[in-house]
């Protein structure tokens, strides 16, 4: 599945999206933290279909996933 990256996370990864296969949000975070250097020490939220998901949730691969660093609007 395609994972959208933003802000300082996109900068760390050197990309605005990555392709990853995972069966749950928990597994996805593990994969992403392996792939993106320093992500495990960063503050970020995971959005599934444009909603922030905090608990572990199953993924079918059809979702729109995004990794969101701290917000800075305004």
């Amino acid at each position, binding site marked *: 599945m395609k994972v959208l990256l933003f802000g300082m996370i996109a900068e760390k990864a050197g990309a605005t999206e990555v392709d990853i296969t995972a069966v749950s949000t928990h597994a996805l975070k593990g994969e992403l933290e392996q792939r993106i250097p320093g992500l495990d020490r960063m503050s970020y939220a995971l*959005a599934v279909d444009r909603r922030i998901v905090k608990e572990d949730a199953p993924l079918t691969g059809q979702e729109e996933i995004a990794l969101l660093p701290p917000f800075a*609007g305004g």
Partner: protein
Amino acid sequence: MSGEKTHKQRDIFVEGAIPASFIAESIAKHASRTDIGGHEIFLGQVRADQQPGTNNHQRTVAIDYTAYRDMANEQMTFIREEAFARWPQMTCLHVHHSQGIIKAGELCFMVFASAPHRQQAREAVAFVTDEVKKRLPIFGKEIFAEGGHVWKTNDLRDAGSSPA
């Protein structure tokens, strides 16, 4: 009452700074709505912060704003619905946020509410401004005069007293 209250999703993002003339035109457009008794406007301006943690207290000359646009616009629709539920007499609410590089001193954010009486417009603008800062996935890269950058993070511990 008007199309304003149907809450269809809109795109709040504008490329570059918000010109002062755009705000004047926004005000002028409301002249035909004679049921309005007051407008309240919040304008966010890019501040030339000194970064205490950096060499020579580097100074911000611009912020490069990016956003997860689909989610931000969807969240804005929810915030708009909440605002109209809390202040049902509000006549209209307009929100715009910049994308791209905005120089210090330029405007990057506008919240504009109108209502028959001032209290509803005032309270709605305060609420919407804080919720946008909390809930919209907008990211800001503060660019230094001397080169380099830092990622801006909104301080949400006390939205009432946080820096704009």
